[in-house]
Structures are given as C-alpha cells and as structure tokens.
C-alpha cells in the first residue's frame, strides 16, 4: 500500500514535471542534422499524420456508435449482416492510402541506399562493449568507451545531461564531406545508431554494412548501440563530433603523429647505449636531487641505488616503483611526467651504471615493457 501511494505521488510528480519541460523533442523523433535525416523525418511525419487521421476517424466513429446505439427500451437492433459495396469501398480506400504512403517511402529509400564511396571512409567495429573507429585512408584509429563514471551509474554521484551518452574519445568527422561508414562487428551483433544522421546499421560479424552521411554544420551527435549485445549493451554509446575540414585535418595529423610515436615504442629496436644515453640525461634532470650524482643517495631518507637488490635483480618491482611511486616516501610516480621511452631509459641507466650491471643481472628495460605495463593496468 505504501508503495502504491509512493508511486502515485511520483506519477503526479512526473506529470507536472512534463508540463514544465515537456518539450516536443521529448515526444518526437528529431529531424536530425543531415538532408537524409530530414527527409526521413518528413516521411515519418507524413505517415504519422495519415495514421493519426485514420485513428481519430475510427475512434470517433466508434464513440458515436457506442453512444448512439446503446440499448434503449423498445428499439430493435437492425439485422443486416453484409454489404459487398461497402466492403469493396473501404478495401479500395485502404489500398489507395497505402499507395500514397508507398510512393514517398520508396523514393526516400532509394536515397538512403545511395551507396557510393565516401570522400572519407571509416571502418566501425562493434566489440563487447565498445566501438572501434578506423580511418581507412589515413590508417589511424582508436577505441571509444563509455566515460560515465560508475559512481553516477550507481547513484553515488549526481547525473548530468549526457549521462550514459558520453565517451572517452568521440568519432571525429569533417563537415561538408561525404563520409561513408563501413560497419561490422568482432563478436556478437551490435547496431550503430546515430539518430541525427538517420543511420542505424547492424554491425554483424562476418559482414560489412554501409551507411553514409553528409553533415553541414559542426556539432556533437549522440547515439547508442541498438542491438542487444550482452550485459553491457546499454553502456556502449556513440558520440560523433563534426568539425570543420581544417580542424579535421589537424585531428588526423595529431593522430598520425601519435601513431608514429607509438610505432617508435613498439617497433624500434633499442640498443643499450641508446637507452643509456637518454637515461643519463633524465637521471641528471629528475633524480640527482635525491639519489645524488653517484647514485648513493642520502640513506635512510633517500636510498642508495648502488648495489640495491631491486636495481640489481628485481626488474618488475623497479618498473613498478617508477610507475607508481612509493607510498609514504618522497619517491613520486613518473608515469605522467615522463614518456615510455624516458622511463625505460632511466631504468636501464640505473641498472647499468655504477657497477650495477656487473654485480646484478644487468637486464635492460625497453619502452614496450612500459607500454605493456600501462595496458595491463587498464
């Protein structure tokens, strides 16, 4: 009973809330941001008005009949049970209405299926539960994950406007350009839907579906996965940022540079002397203040690195200290301050210098190991 009262109160609350901000947008499809989406919106409104008119006509006729022919004393019901003419009339009427709807529907369909190559082609891959975007011509790409915090989802922090509709890295596309999407999936079926582009294409493993768009004005457009894809189906939103072509080329340039940087880390063969050289410079800049020029530190506050167990024989812990810092000591994490190359180099330097290589295991650390450490942590 208490529940019932609570719910009826919330109903009243919900109703009044709707009066206050019951904008049309909350009730209807959005016309969207492209010509195609606007045409589909127009088609939707046409069909809607036709259906509304039929619905109102039927319901009014019904209300009239229910009122007029309710049982009255002394009035006998009629007993007709057939009228071929009447039945033919409304059958033909229905057929005509449907033809009227089918014509615009067909022409919009043909436009939607205009499947030429785009100026830019983007491969979209659905994964449980994130989207992967790859710019085919520029050979760059990234993953896009939900960025709404767990606290918000668990009602521990207030929710904001884009609750569940925000990502760590949006898909960026240029305006005034024909962009074509090639859509597929890696595990189960997903569906890539951006209402403002009127694109909803299933992402199916083993298939590549297509969709295209041409956005005129810059903006941010949000959508969601629309095919049940497992437990976090509700948590893989889509955010597309349309920017001017100039901004877009900067974006691509940055992505390419980042990619080269990445390749450097993962593909280059590093020699000990190269690492030593970079490492020594880093050591001088960041470490000497505490660990001192000869690496002997000022024990017990700043431990000596010369002959240290960790520096000589425990590579894993050595990496961890640099990445995480040491709780309660002056040693801070360098994960954010230094690049992967720099961290690997300075570790290698300390493991090699001051006779450590000879007394310890003398192992070096390459940048990829730092990268792996970071990815495993994710």
């Amino acid at each position, binding site marked *: 009973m208490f529940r*019932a009262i609570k*719910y*009826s109160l*919330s*109903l009243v*609350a*919900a*109703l009044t809330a*709707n009066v206050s901000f019951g904008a049309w947008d*909350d009730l209807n*499809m959005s016309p969207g941001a492209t010509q195609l989406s606007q*045409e*589909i919106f127009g088609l*939707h409104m046409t069909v*809607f008005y036709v*259906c*509304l008119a*039929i*619905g109102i006509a*039927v*319901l009014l006729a*019904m209300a009239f*009949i229910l009122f007029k*022919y*309710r049982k009255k004393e002394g009035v006998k019901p*009629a*007993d*007709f*049970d057939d*009228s071929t003419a009447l039945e033919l009339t*409304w059958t033909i009427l*229905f057929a005509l209405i*449907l033809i009227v*709807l*089918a014509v615009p529907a067909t022409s919009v*369909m043909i436009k*939607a*299926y205009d499947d030429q190559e785009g100026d830019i082609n983007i491969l979209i891959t659905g994964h449980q539960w994130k989207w992967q975007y790859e710019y085919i011509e520029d050979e760059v790409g990234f993953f896009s994950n939900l960025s709404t915090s767990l606290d918000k*989802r668990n009602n521990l922090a207030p*929710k904001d*406007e884009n*609750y*569940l509709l925000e990502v760590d890295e949006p898909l960026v596309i240029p305006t005034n350009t024909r962009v074509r999407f090639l859509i597929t999936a890696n595990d189960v*079926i997903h569906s890539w*839907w951006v209402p403002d582009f009127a694109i*909803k*294409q299933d992402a*199916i*493993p*083993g*298939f590549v579906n*297509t969709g295209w768009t041409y956005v005129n004005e810059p903006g941010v457009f949000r959508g*969601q996965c*629309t095919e*049940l*894809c*497992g*437990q976090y189906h*509700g*948590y893989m939103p889509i955010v597309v940022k349309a920017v001017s072509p100039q901004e877009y080329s900067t974006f691509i340039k940055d992505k390419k540079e980042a990619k080269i940087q990445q390749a450097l880390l993962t593909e280059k063969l590093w020699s000990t002397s190269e690492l030593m050289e970079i490492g020594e410079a880093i050591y001088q800049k960041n470490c000497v203040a505490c660990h001192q020029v000869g690496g002997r530190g000022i024990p017990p506050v700043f431990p000596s690195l010369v002959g240290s167990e960790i520096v000589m024989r425990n590579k894993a812990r050595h990496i961890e200290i640099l990445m995480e810092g040491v709780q309660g000591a002056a040693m801070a994490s360098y994960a954010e301050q230094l690049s992967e190359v720099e961290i690997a180099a300075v570790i290698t330097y300390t493991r090699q210098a001051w006779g450590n290589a000879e007394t310890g295991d003398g192992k070096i650390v390459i940048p990829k190991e730092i990268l792996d450490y970071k990815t495993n942590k994710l």
Partner: protein
Amino acid sequence: MSAVIDSHHDDHHHGPAKGFSRWLYTTNHKDIGSMYLWFSLVMLFIGGAMAMVIRAELFEPGSQIVSPEFYNQMVTNHGLIMVFGVIMPAFVGFANWMIPMQIGAPDMALPRLNNLSFWILPVAFGILLSTFFMEGGAPNFGWTFYAPLSTEYAPPTVTFFIFSVHIMGASSIMGSINIITTILNMRAPGMTLMKMPLFVWSWFITAYLLIAVMPVLAGAVTMMLMDIHAGTSFFKAGGGGDPVLFQHIFWFFGHPEVYIMILPAFGIVSHIIETFSRKPIFGYSSMVYAIASIALLSFVVWAHHMFTVGMPIAGELFFMYSTMLIAIPTGVKVFNWLSTMFKGSLTFETPMLFAIAFVALFTIGGLSGIMLAIAPADFQYHDTYFVVAHFHYVLVPGALFSLLAAAYYWIPKWTGKMYDETLGKVHFWMSFISVNLTFFPMHFVGLAGMPRRIPDYAMQFADWNMMVSVGAFLFGISQLLFLFIVLKCIYNGKEATTEVWEGAKDRGFEWTVDSPAPYHTFSSPPSMESLKSSS
C-alpha cells in the same frame, strides 16, 4: 438436470473422479481446457512479476534493483513466458473448451494426444525456469535469441532453453493437429465450413500456421544446438557461417507467430461484439477471407524485422510493400466490427468492454505497425521503445484483452456461476487506464531515441519512464483483481442461466447446453436448425 447444477462443484470443477491422477490422465476436453487456462494464468503472474522487476529497474535513471546481466535474463524470460507460456496456451485452452462445444462435437478428435500436449508444457516451462538456479543464469539473449549472442556467447543454460523450446513446439504442433482434425471431422451435420463460428475459423487457420512454422523454429534451435555442441558453423561467422541466416529463419517463424497470437483473438472478439450488439456479425465471409489472407501474407513479410541488417534495396522494398498489404485485411476486420455494432442494441457488460477496448487499442497497434512498415522510417524506429509500444499494443490490449474478454464471456457457461459484474467493470477500467499509461508513453521515448532492452537510460527519458513504471505496477495489481474475480465466481457466484447472455442461444451451440456445461456434451450432434443466426 437439476442434479448437475446442485453438484456443479464436484461435477465441473473437479470432475467426476477425484484426486490428482484424474487430472494427469484426463482426456476430457473441458478438463484439459481448464488446465491450459490455469496454467497460463499462473504463467501470467510469473511473467508479470518479471515485468515488474523490469519496470522497477527502469523506474529512474541509474542502477536500481538488479544487475544488467539479471535485467537481460528478466527481459528474455518475460518475453518467452508471455508468448509461449501465456498467450499461446491460453488460446489453446479456449480452443479445447469451446471448439467442440461450438461445432457440436462430444470432445476433441484425439483426446490422448490432447492430454499429452498439455502435460509436456509444464515440463517445458519447468526446465526453462530451472535455469535461473543454474550456473551462468537463465537465458539472457532476448526472446528473439539472435545468434551468435545465443550460441557462442550464451550462458551454458542455453542447452536447456533449446530443449524447452523443442518441447513447447511439440506441444503446439500436437495441439494444432488435434484442432484441425476435430474441425474437419467432427462438425455437427449441416455445419459447412462457411457456417462455422468465427472462433473456430480463426483457430482452424491458426493451427495451420502453427504446423507450418513450429518446425522452422525447431530447425533454428537445432542448428543452434549443433553450433554449440557439434562444432558446426551455421551461424558462426568465424567458421564460414552466417549470423543473418539465423534472423531469416527466426522471423520466418516469428512473424506468423505474432499472428498466431492474434487470429484467435479476432474470432473471440467477433463473437462477443455480435452477442452484445444483438446483431449478426457484419461481413462474415469477408472476416474469414481477411483472416485467411492475413495468414497467407504473414509468410512473406518476415524481413520487416530486419530492415537494418543490410538487405539489398530490392529486399527492403519487397518487404515494405508486403507488410503494408497486411494492413488491408486488418483494416477490413476493424471496419466490420464497427459495422456490426452500427445500428445494434449495445450493452456494456465486462466482456463487451474488453472487446471494445480491444478494437480501439488494437487499431492503435495496427497504425503504429503501418508506421514501422515504412522501411526508411523504420531505420529510426527499429529496436527502440517505439517497437516495444507497437507490439505491446497488439499483444496486451490486443491478445490479452481478448483472453480476458473471453474468460468473462464463457466463464458462466463453464462454472454455472456469474462473475461479479461490478468487480468485472472495476477490473476493466483499471486495466484500461493502466495499460494506456504503461504503453502509450513508450511511443514517445521510442521516437525520442530510447533503445529497447537497456537496463539504464539517459536523463531525457526519465519522466516518461517513471510514468510507464507506475502504469505497469497498476496494471499488475489489476490482474490480481482478475484472479480474485475468477475465484469469487467459482466459489461464490450467482447461478447462471443456460443462455447466460440475452439472445445468445441463437448464436452458438455452446449457449444451448446447461450452465455449467455438463462433463460430456453433444453425445449426439445438435441440429443447425436450432441456431437462428446461421440460416
């Protein structure tokens, strides 16, 4: 026959023999009909409880009472139970009770098969529900169980699910064979096909649909089984298989299936409207042809559920046109019902109220169906709450209301007792208001962009969802009232007359036998002469 009325309790509700084995071994169509109906009522409350969990979770944005994983199990099992455990068995229950009585037959043609087709159903649902207690949890891939989510990525309990679907299918096929055989062979002399009551006609066609598509469903789940356990790759892209093939097979079953859930309702509503309009049904033969053409068309529209899978444009257009065509016979039916009421002498007892609400709200569902049929627009509607609104309009105030109407309409004949008319009306108005409160706003959130089958949603959908949840809780409570009304009718109802409804005895054989209907009816066939309206 006063002895029958005096001992109605033993005679009817428990039948002549006593104890559980009587129910286990019964071959009486009335007993089996009752068991089907009780079974589906129980399932209605189980599936309904799941719906309450869903609506509680969606009451507000943010995680509420269940995990996303359990939410998916709720959505899946709610759908499976409502479709296979409530609507379908309930219609079979009505078929069992009413078809022999409407065609003047003593029983179903194949009574032992009848017993078997009922008793394997609780087994099937026992298996399905037991998966909730197994490792990995119950099926969580939606009632449409698209591969590969339901194969390579399914919980291990999917094998139990497959087994249970097989049993449900076997039950439906046996039931359909029985219904067709009964209708073809056991009609009273003089009852030609075109003189059969419309409920009989609608079930006759439905039974053929079932026989045609249940094996297809069985094929689909068998292919899943092979993919999971025998190393085949029917639906596995990695092995050269085709996940879209699954959807084609599923919907080749699935679309006729949605009509299986509505055609018998057409029959029921036709009878009720005729009775309470005190006027013969308008356009009997066009009603029959409409049902038949809906059934035929339902085989060529399946891919309207798949407009976004990336079909070639010719496919999109074909399925768009064929789907739009279905609206014609559907519209004919609605107009025929209106014309039946036109110039009638209408009264508004509970069955009629539900039947009228059926016509009105089913029309809304049909109109949203036309919108969905427009393929380019469906790109925006598909897999949103707009679709959820559509199919709930045709299935809840559609199929379910027709079942409630039928229960009120025939229960006096079954029990010999009248239900409480005031409570019946209260039940109707509560259901009517709450059903609209629940499902109408779903159109809005769907158009505004809320995907279906998500456990949490963006802020702009919050208000409508709260309203939907409140409506759903009210609807749930209203159906408890129905249970109370049924029990009150059985144990404490006023005596019903033979005719029950004014003028009914001219309209069907069922109204010429005593109330309650004796355990065995029509040991010798009745004469068509006794029915005025079949002249």
